């Protein structure tokens, strides 16, 4: 029963997204929604590790950029079809995730967080020094002329990102609602106890980091075609790292729909701010919302809603 409703929503979202591309030809909406969806994928991916197992990834931008720069390299070297390159980019990021998972064997807590940050910075230095990838100066990526069944390329990118977002959400939901999710939650709460209760902690962490890596790489893979100009500063942007932490924190990290809600709320607010107020205030908004939520509503919007519901239930009963 519950499965049905979720999958119905998935189909509804995808059909609505497709209809959107056919009915609306104002490209701006696709740009804005694309950015929100990209944030959503990053947030959901981050949460698969951070929210479910409690390992904080500070280096989200590194995974994102790995996806993006894999695309740059593949496009330049072979010019393969878009879906093939996207899959390769996701795979490579997934492998990086797998490696990061092995790091978690030795490094817990803050050490792990710093190691991920360090990995991102090392990757950035490598890109900065790689002439093939454009180095620090950046490189151009020309969008292909044909855009499949869509009117223009941004609609194609939008639909592709929507698909990735839906898949990421479905995977995240599957992970959290299944036996795996219970194991991941046990790892988050107490890794030693989890292991002694028969939870194969390393295996679960590897699944978690790899899944995270794949989706972050997928989110980044379309980026070069979206901006058409990639440089390390924007691909490794700190805002990407902050957003992928802030969105789950604002939405609620404990459940799969927390980061989805957080990403939609923060993403829409940010996109609105970009075109109405100023972008620097944008950062301030993230900062203030992040600090506000974690000090006053540590379980995020989801937690606020549950508290509210519990309170109302209490009133009704009392």
């Amino acid at each position, binding site marked *: 029963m519950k499965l049905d409703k979720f999958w119905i929503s998935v189909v509804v979202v995808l059909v609505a997204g497709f209809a959107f591309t056919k009915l609306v030809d104002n490209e701006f909406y696709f740009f804005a929604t694309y950015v929100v969806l990209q944030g959503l994928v990053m947030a959901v991916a981050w949460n698969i590790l951070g929210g479910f197992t409690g390992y904080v990834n500070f280096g989200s931008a590194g995974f994102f950029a790995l996806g993006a720069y894999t695309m740059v390299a593949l496009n330049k070297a072979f010019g393969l079809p878009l879906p093939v390159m996207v899959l390769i980019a996701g795979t490579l990021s997934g492998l990086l995730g797998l490696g990061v998972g092995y790091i978690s064997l030795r490094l817990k807590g803050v050490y792990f967080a710093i190691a991920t940050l360090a990995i991102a910075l090392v990757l950035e230095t490598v890109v900065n020094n790689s002439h093939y990838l454009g180095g620090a100066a950046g490189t151009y990526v020309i969008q292909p002329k044909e855009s499949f069944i869509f009117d223009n390329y941004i609609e194609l990118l939008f639909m592709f990102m929507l698909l990735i977002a839906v898949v990421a959400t479905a995977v995240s939901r599957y992970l959290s609602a299944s*036996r795996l999710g*219970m*194991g991941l*939650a*046990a790892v*988050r*709460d*107490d890794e*030693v*106890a*989890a*292991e*002694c*209760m*028969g*939870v*194969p*902690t*390393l295996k679960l962490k590897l699944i978690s980091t790899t899944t995270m890596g794949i989706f972050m790489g997928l989110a980044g893979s379309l980026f070069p075609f979206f901006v058409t100009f990639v440089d390390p500063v924007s691909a490794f942007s700190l805002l990407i790292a902050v957003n992928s932490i802030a969105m789950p924190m604002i939405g609620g990290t*404990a459940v799969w729909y927390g980061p989805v809600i957080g990403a939609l709320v923060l993403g829409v607010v940010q996109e609105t701010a970009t075109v109405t107020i100023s972008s620097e205030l944008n950062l301030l908004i993230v900062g203030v919302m992040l600090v506000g939520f974690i000090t006053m509503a540590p379980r995020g919007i989801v937690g606020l809603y549950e508290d509210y519901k519990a309170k109302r239930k209490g009133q009704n009963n009392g």
Partner: protein
Amino acid sequence: MAEPVLKVTDLTKRFGGFVALDTVNMELNDKERLGLIGPNGSGKTTLINCISGALTNEEGTVNFNGEDITQMKAHKRAHMGISRSFQIPKPFGTMSIIENLLVPMEYAAWDRVDHRNLREQAMDILELVGFKDRADENSASLTQVDMRKLELARALAAKPKLLVSDEAMAGLSGSEVDEILEILFALAERSVAIIMIEHIMRAVMRFSERIIVLDAGKKIADGSPDEVVSNPDVEKAYLGE
């Protein structure tokens, strides 16, 4: 005579230059209630860490159910039926009490439980420790004694053949000690071999069929409670010379 459920042979564990356990040998029979005592730092916790797999030993072997598990990871040992509680309770703090029990049922006891009615089975165990009406309470906000009970309940939910109880009574009041002891006796009746580490001698003496004494990483006594109490080495270890 039946094969012992647990057999530790010449187990030595070093941390750097420090020898925490020195050629320890021990056996445990099916359904036996064993007390493990010794002064602070004598190696009790290290020994059960080596048995449960939280630590691995480079020298000596650990056999469980006739199988060599020396190199086996902790979660595999849990699958085979070794379960433990922790001295400092480690509940899964974001989960409710009953969810804490479902974790070992879904993992350690995966091959042994009937998956059709996990909740009912968990409720059975909760009833045993007196949590029947509190199944959906959050586990992080329990009192000390309730945490200890949850530790034992969770260890039991793994459907173990061997249960290790690590100082489940430390810091509890007299009546609370009795409550925990009741639970442990009830567990023993469910055909589980139990190793109990405890400082509270009254509890150990009452509970154990046999007692092993460790001192400075060495086994210094192994016998019935009365034998152990009258052993001069034990007296020396506890009281000093």
